[in-house]
């Protein structure tokens, strides 16, 4: 009913708690067990810890470019608590908490950001697409996994992510339209973190909201406070039920803020103010949920420190493991391009190996001299 009550056409943001973590709309507080709630919070903590460590690994030159998730964790955790084993996840590239829920191992994740393809396939994650770097191009994929689900009468839904910037691409439009016309089970989630690299939302679109774009496709649209775990959880839950029961796709705009840089090569001070950043830090999703939990005596600050240091150890152990992972052989450049390697590729490989042999013998000669 949230989708009706807060339909994007009404221009109301759906929130359950305030910026301090006080419940402001008890009637909308979703049913969720204390266990699951604590798990959801721990998931957020874990993702945040991993995220921050990756950023520092990057500063140490141990991985390449990385897009920080800081501040957007409630969205990912909400999906994580709802998504089922057979459901599909079609990621953009900034929703680590959701990936982990689908079974992506930290090691694969590290390998990928270390620039090792072996990780990028997320082989252990069932029914999950790889990261999609070309903005919004993943959305048509999501749209039509749904068609396959319908055709095969499977009990699955698809969760698809994009950013606010992604809504400007033609593929956003085509994907949502296909999904609506074909009435398939997809939950489209826009992480509106206010920026596409340096470009602020107002230069991206002047529509009343991003959620209202759902109108263009005849699907329900909802604008949610993406830093409010309860609101996100309730929205995802309702979206999931709606779409799983054959009512077609839905669009959720999760309003949030990218607290970190766009990627580790970006410098946000060039395009936004310290005041803005601080204002949003006050709405931090982890803090809000923590406040709530502490208030309800479900959590203690003391426990957190220990937990995080445990996380850190674990994360670092895996990171070192990933660092020690063998770098991949020449073979791997070739073998996955086609099911059966075309003669031409075979020859390119053989020729290159011949060169490598020559090079080795040349080096030996040099050394011998």
């Amino acid at each position, binding site marked *: 009913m949230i989708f009706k009550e807060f339909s994007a056409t009404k221009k109301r943001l759906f929130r359950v708690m305030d910026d301090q973590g006080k419940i402001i709309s008890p009637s909308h507080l979703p049913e969720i067990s204390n266990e699951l709630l604590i798990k959801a919070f721990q998931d957020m903590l874990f993702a945040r810890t991993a995220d921050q460590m990756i950023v520092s690994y990057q500063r140490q030159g141990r991985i390449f470019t990385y897009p920080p998730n800081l501040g957007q964790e409630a969205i990912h955790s909400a999906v994580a608590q709802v998504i089922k084993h057979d459901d599909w996840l079609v990621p953009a590239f900034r929703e680590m908490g959701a990936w982990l829920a689908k079974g992506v191992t930290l090691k694969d994740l590290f390998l990928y950001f270390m620039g090792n393809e072996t990780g990028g396939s997320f*082989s252990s994650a069932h029914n999950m697409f790889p990261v999609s770097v070309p903005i919004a191009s993943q959305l*048509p994929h999501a749209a039509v996994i749904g*068609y*396959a689900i319908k*055709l095969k009468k499977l009990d699955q839904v698809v969760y698809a992510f994009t950013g606010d910037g992604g809504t400007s691409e*033609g593929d956003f439009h*085509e994907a949502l339209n296909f999904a609506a016309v074909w009435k398939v089970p997809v939950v489209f989630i826009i992480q509106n973190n206010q920026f596409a690299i340096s470009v602020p939302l107002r230069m991206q679109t002047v529509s009343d909201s991003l959620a209202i774009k759902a109108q263009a496709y005849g699907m329900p649209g909802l604008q949610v406070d993406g830093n409010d775990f309860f609101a996100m959880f309730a929205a995802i839950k309702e979206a999931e039920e709606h779409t799983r029961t054959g009512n077609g796709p839905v669009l959720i705009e999760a309003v949030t803020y990218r607290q970190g840089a766009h990627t580790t090569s970006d410098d946000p001070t060039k395009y936004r103010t310290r005041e803005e950043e601080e204002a949003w830090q006050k709405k931090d999703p982890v803090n809000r949920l923590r406040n709530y939990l502490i208030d309800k005596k479900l959590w203690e600050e003391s426990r957190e420190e220990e937990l995080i240091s445990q996380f850190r150890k674990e994360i670092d152990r895996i990171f070192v493991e990933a660092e020690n992972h063998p770098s991949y052989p020449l073979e*791997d450049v070739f073998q996955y391009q086609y099911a059966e390697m075309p003669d031409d590729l075979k020859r390119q490989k053989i020729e290159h190996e011949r060169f490598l042999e020559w090079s080795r013998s040349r080096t030996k000669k040099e050394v011998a001299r």
Partner: protein
Amino acid sequence: MKIMNMVNAINDALDIKLKEDPNIVVYGEDVGVEGGVFRVTEGLQKKHGADRVFDSPLAESGIVGTAVGMAAAGLRPVVEMQFCGFVYPAFNQIISHVSRMRNRTRGKYTMPIVIRVPYGGGINALEHHSESMEALYAHIPGLKVVIPSTPADAKGMLISALESPDPVMFMEPKRIYRAIKQEVSEDSYSIPLGKGKILHPGTDVTVIAYGAMVREVQKAMVMAKEAGISVELIDLRSIYPIDKELLASSIKKTGRVVFVAEEPTAFGVGAEIMAIANEEAFLYLQAPPKRVSAFDTIVPLPKGEHHYLISPEKIFYEIERTAKF
């Protein structure tokens, strides 16, 4: 055996595979009720249901992009791009996903997708309706690009494409959609992709062509014969992978190469053929390999197209010049 033109043959291949493989779905603009603007999918929706043969919204990127999702989810989509000139909106999906998903996911997700593309000039069409852009696809790692020149080949090659574990750009020379009729087996049979074919053995000049140009070369060969030139005609059939072995052995035999295609010349398939002639048979070459292909301009509207199309006479002219070099 049954007399078929290429439209019938492609339709037959789709029909057979739709029956055999429940994962095949066929869609695109107007392919359902209408049966396609060239009637290639005519009757398939009635036979196989609107779940498996259907119309899509008018959005090429969406059509190919959705095929990616379907393929990952275990289906085998066959999508139609209405004309070669309208594939461009789908380029991002083709290059960024279709062609590389297997590699990017180390084989976790594969893309058994067939993208059907009617292409080529000579049909008195509007602008944007006569393009021959096979070279663009051939340059993209991960795609197969094939082009039949007869109904029988079209059927066998399409069946192979529909069994291919990797994506295939299946380009259909619309100029000869209905112009060539021949006996075609009604059975399911396949012709391996990646293999060319010697249509006519000869000793003086190797002529390499594909699609609608094969027939034009055959016309030129009548003149060549009169002029006492023995032509070995190769139907390339597959642009990528390209049959270097076949090309090399023929070129080594004749020492002379003429390549014939509708595409604009610069940076086209012809350039790759020139490269292959050198890389594979340098010491055998007795004349510079020659490209007979289109000017590097857009295809003129019908009233100017005669200036632009490759005529049998022009092919003969170049064959003769190469033979006499």
